């Protein structure tokens, strides 16, 4: 048995379950970008672009890149939250799995691998819709996929670590209400963080989605100026997100083990 054998078995079981439920998630993968990009990008964007804004790129492009990172965050965080709680408490499928050769770490790593597949799908669809709506060239949109996936994975790993220490889903709702949604609104997705009040800007710099949004824009649209992006070097974004992913995975594995193997 190689190290990845167990995790791959977990991916297989996720895939089998997904075959029953894929329609709902697939539809929202198409509908969400369409709604956001038409309402915010095209609708609100026509006001922004004709106003006193000094963005170097059309607002639709700005929103499309920001939303790719933000929706990766939302999908990634969701993957690490409710299905994990279900596995621990509601369905107890994890308890069943660990009575076979599968270990808690296999479950964490397997679900993580599965997240890569799901996030890639979500972001490719997002990019395709952004292309159709004229936000970007197709090639640019596809360049946004890998940094987007990395952003999502950082959130999958961190949220999983959080979830395995929680007793019920109220704390998960709290996480989304007071964690994910504020990040969604204030991380440069809808406006450059240079527009934030001075005292809030340092906070934005340390939040994970900021790094995801910046990384997506710098990958997809090289050569942007400071009206759109900050001067933070790319390697810092990557290091931040990779570290968050790695720490999240290690803690999630350790804490799930502690939770399941009492």
């Amino acid at each position, binding site marked *: 048995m190689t190290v990845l054998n167990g995790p791959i078995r977990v991916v297989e079981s996720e895939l*089998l*379950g997904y075959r*029953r439920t894929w329609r709902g998630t697939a539809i929202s993968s198409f509908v969400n970008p369409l709604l956001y990009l038409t309402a915010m990008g095209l609708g609100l964007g026509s006001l922004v672009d004709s106003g006193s804004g000094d963005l170097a790129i059309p607002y639709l492009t700005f929103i499309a890149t920001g939303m790719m990172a933000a929706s990766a965050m939302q999908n990634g965080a969701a993957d690490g939250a409710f299905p994990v709680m279900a596995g621990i408490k509601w369905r107890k*499928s994890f308890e*069943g799995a660990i009575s*076979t*050769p599968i270990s808690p770490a296999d479950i964490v790593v397997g679900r993580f691998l599965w997240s890569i597949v799901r996030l890639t799908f979500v972001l490719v669809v997002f990019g395709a819709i952004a292309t159709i709506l004229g936000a970007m060239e197709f090639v640019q949109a596809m360049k946004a996929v890998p940094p987007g996936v990395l952003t999502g994975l950082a959130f999958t790993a961190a949220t999983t670590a959080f979830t395995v220490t929680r007793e019920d889903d109220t704390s998960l709702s709290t996480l989304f209400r007071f964690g994910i949604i504020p990040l969604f609104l204030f991380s440069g997705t809808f406006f450059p963080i240079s527009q934030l009040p001075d005292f809030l800007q340092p906070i934005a710099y340390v939040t994970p989605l900021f790094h995801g949004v910046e990384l997506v824009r710098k990958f997809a649209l090289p050569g942007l100026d400071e009206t759109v992006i900050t001067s933070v070097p790319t390697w810092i974004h990557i290091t931040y997100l990779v570290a968050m992913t790695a720490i999240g995975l290690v803690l999630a594995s350790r804490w799930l083990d502690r939770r399941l193997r009492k």
Partner: protein
Amino acid sequence: MTESLVEARGLTKKFDEFVAVDNIDFDIHKGEAFGFLGPNGAGKTSTMKMITTVSPITEGKLTVFGIDPTVNGRAIRQRIGVVPQEDNLDLELTVAENLYIYGRYHDMSRAEIRERITELLEFAQLSDRGKAKVEALSGGMKRRLTIARALINDPELVILDEPTTGLDPQARHVLWDRLYRLKQQGATLIITTHYMDEAEQLCDRLVVMDKGKIVAEDSPRKLIETHAPREVVELRFEEGSHDANVLKLDGVAQRSEVLADRVLLYTDDADDTQRAVESRGVHPEQVLVRRSTLEDVFLRLTGRRLID
């Protein structure tokens, strides 16, 4: 001497200050059905979880197939099948898919699994349900599927935690029949239960557990022979006369147990005892004569009943 599959010496499990399993010793031999009988909270499930390697032991020594679970739990789990107390089937998948996933967890090839699924569905009497969603199954069927799932890897040791709790009598009998067949095929079974009839039906040998300790160990028949006279006369009295009658019965049988609603008289000759009761001027509302069971053994050993 028969080969020991599981050996425990001084096995102890503590949760903080609470001692769930308190310094117990046992050996489980190849090919036998070994039972852990005791009320809820006696430490049976904690013991099972240590054997299945999902709960680290606190103190003492435990080996399964000669392997230390703290050293190589995975190697043990490859060779066992576990039926948990609560079903944890995937309700959204079909019956066959539930088996398939566990086959993959055990690293079996697809062809191997397909063949095994056919056999197991037949064994679990679910052959016509392979494509049905688990959600639609009855409680008894779900339980049989959980057992079938535990057998996917053709385990050398099958561990069943309260296999029939929550099932109606008919479903229980079907399940007992399946487990009996499994035993005949040579499987080693470990069963926890708080039903004495289940223990009597299925177990070759059992330990009686109470408050984390083993209070007796033997075959069901030997336990009854050792700890309880052959027969029991159960007396129920008219409401209000229970206490007064109890006083009159002092010393009437070899041993007696006074419960809230009835009196149990233990004796080797029920007819004799009944006559003796009558001669003391006691006229119960209801008299029941039965053979001693493990329930009586438990009552004798712990002063309490198995099911409250």
